[in-house]
């Protein structure tokens, strides 16, 4: 058993980068203000001191070009970790991600690889408004050739980032701005978490909640309160949306026969809808009730804090969704 240490999510990410850069000379990182400043969310602090400006690179505000430089360096044998400050800014790099990184291995018949990690963060913060608050995972989910990782805990963050860096394909590593200060126990030293393995964050028998990223702690908080009402909730965190661990999800559904999918992203065209379609296709006979999706409203995120709250699922939205589902359909 490894020693466990309490770390913040951002510290766990920092340790992952530090360890991978120590063990592999081809790993380097670049992004806006990541070197001396250590990044806006302090994920890359102190890395400059150890690895120098050649491997910890501050970039101009030229997202398309430095992301493309990551793609080129990856094809040429390096393992770049490119940071895009806000996931909203990934809209500037879509050609390099979608037409280049995602397709290079395919277009070369498997001969070439792009072992690049694109780290970015999304979700609502506290009044960051419409261009700094989006949950854009469905856009990446839609593109074959990209893997998509969305960790919810410090332990997952470290193990998944290390696995992502070692993966030979491009990985979108989508963090959440409200998770950076969250604490949790993290094993000391080297470990990885395989991409494509979901984690049952809480076991339960009456309802399955499927949630990822910041919706995981929110669902767990809801589950704790529901427990007191006598409703046993299982919380399944896919951790990686691509590849998606269907089996763990389906197994939970077979057990509880009730499903709620909670996503911060807007409802329309969301990943929740796709997961719901997979569930009904594969285990329809087990379902005791229609699948419920608790999702963001189909709107840009407003600045006003009270309005910001109503556009993404809150703990009470999750609680009432569970109560509705169980109350209406369970004897």
């Amino acid at each position, binding site marked *: 058993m490894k020693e466990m240490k309490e770390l913040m999510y951002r510290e766990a990410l920092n340790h992952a980068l530090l360890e991978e850069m120590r063990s592999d000379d081809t790993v380097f990182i670049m992004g806006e203000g990541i070197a001396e400043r250590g990044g806006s969310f302090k994920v890359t602090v102190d890395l400059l001191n150890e690895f120098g400006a050649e491997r910890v690179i501050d970039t101009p505000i030229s997202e398309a070009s430095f992301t493309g430089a990551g793609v080129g360096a990856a*094809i*040429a044998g390096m393992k770049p970790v490119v940071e895009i400050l806000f996931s909203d800014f990934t809209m500037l790099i879509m050609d390099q991600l979608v037409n*280049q990184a995602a397709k290079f291995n*395919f277009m070369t*018949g498997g*001969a070439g690889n792009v072992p690049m990690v694109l780290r970015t963060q999304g979700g609502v913060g506290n009044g960051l408004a419409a261009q700094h608050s989006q949950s854009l995972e469905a856009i990446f989910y839609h593109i074959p050739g990209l893997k998509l990782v969305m960790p919810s805990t410090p332990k997952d963050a470290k193990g998944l980032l290390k696995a992502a860096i070692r993966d030979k394909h491009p990985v979108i590593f989508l963090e959440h701005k409200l998770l950076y200060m969250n604490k949790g126990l993290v094993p000391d030293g080297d470990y990885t978490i395989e991409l494509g393995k979901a984690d049952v964050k809480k076991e339960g028998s009456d309802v399955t909640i499927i949630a990822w990223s910041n919706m995981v702690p929110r669902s767990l908080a809801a589950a704790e309160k529901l427990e007191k009402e006598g409703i046993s909730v299982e919380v399944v965190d896919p951790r990686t949306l691509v590849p998606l661990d269907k089996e763990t999800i389906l197994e939970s559904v077979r057990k509880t026969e009730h499903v709620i999918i909670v996503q911060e992203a807007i409802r329309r065209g969301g990943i929740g809808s796709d997961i719901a379609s997979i569930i009904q296709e594969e285990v329809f006979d087990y379902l005791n009730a229609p699948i419920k999706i608790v999702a963001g409203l189909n709107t840009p995120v407003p600045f006003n804090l009270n309005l910001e709250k109503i556009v993404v699922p809150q703990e009470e939205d999750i609680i009432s969704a569970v109560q509705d589902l169980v109350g209406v359909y369970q004897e």
Partner: protein
Amino acid sequence: MELKYSKEFVTNVYKTLLTIRVFETECIKLYRQGFIRGYFHPYLGEEAIAVGVCAALTDKDYITSTHRGHGHCIANGANLDKMIAELLGKKDGYCKGLGGSMHIADTTKGNLGANGIVGAGIPIGIGAALATKIRKDDAVAVTFSSDGAANNGVFSEGLNLAAAWDLPFIMVLENNQYAVSTPIKESTREVELVKRGESLGVKSFRIDGNNVFEVYETTKEAIRICKEEKGPVLIEAITFRHGGHHVNDPGLYLPKEELDYYMSKDPVKFARKYLIDDLGLNESEVEEIDSGVNKQIEDSIEFAKENGEMSSQEFLKFIENY
């Protein structure tokens, strides 16, 4: 008069120029006969740029190419069997038939790929230059690009980035003066694109892109600057297409007098004449080279035609993890 280039060097240069010429000409025939489908952007008329640049590169260097990329691949030493097989969508093609004309890459030879998106090779080439700098490879990365790409954001962004980081990066702008059908003077006010490099503090050259020796010498100087001073370097090579944007575009918008002028400066004829007039080869010696090239392309076409295709089962296996 002392000759600047050896017979062997010029013979190789001529052979490569001619290989591209014959490759494109014969593959266009295959296209017309229905053996090649999709898009096909011929490099006819621009051969001197790829050949002159690649003659100055070593195995350690990188290139990125464009949608008009066959010439760059050949000049970089690509295998012709695999190239033509790819154009025919066959399983032993460079991309197993999954890529086609616009996506041929050979990472084992430092060719990071043609590209279907105009300008997209620029950041990728910069990334290869960054990789060589981090590893201290003593190599350069060359991106072939164009006057059309110069009006895309990644051109200015990328060249600025390469300059800010002093990268061993050489941007070769193949200025064929047309972006598909739009003449350069309609898409930018300042048509001397070399000035854009200068404005970013980048050493920049404007040269005759139909003169393979001028391209070669400028590339050698660019490599020297990258290694002894600091990169990047911009080379604007002026040239002209011998036809339309792709095989199904007759290029009627190309003014006849301009086309005639550039036809008279044909890079393949230029090198052939150099072999005969300056190096003293006789007509039959050159014809021997010609027939060697023709035979090689014929053999590769034969190989490609006989090669099989990836089956749907093999394809479904290939995409299992997508």
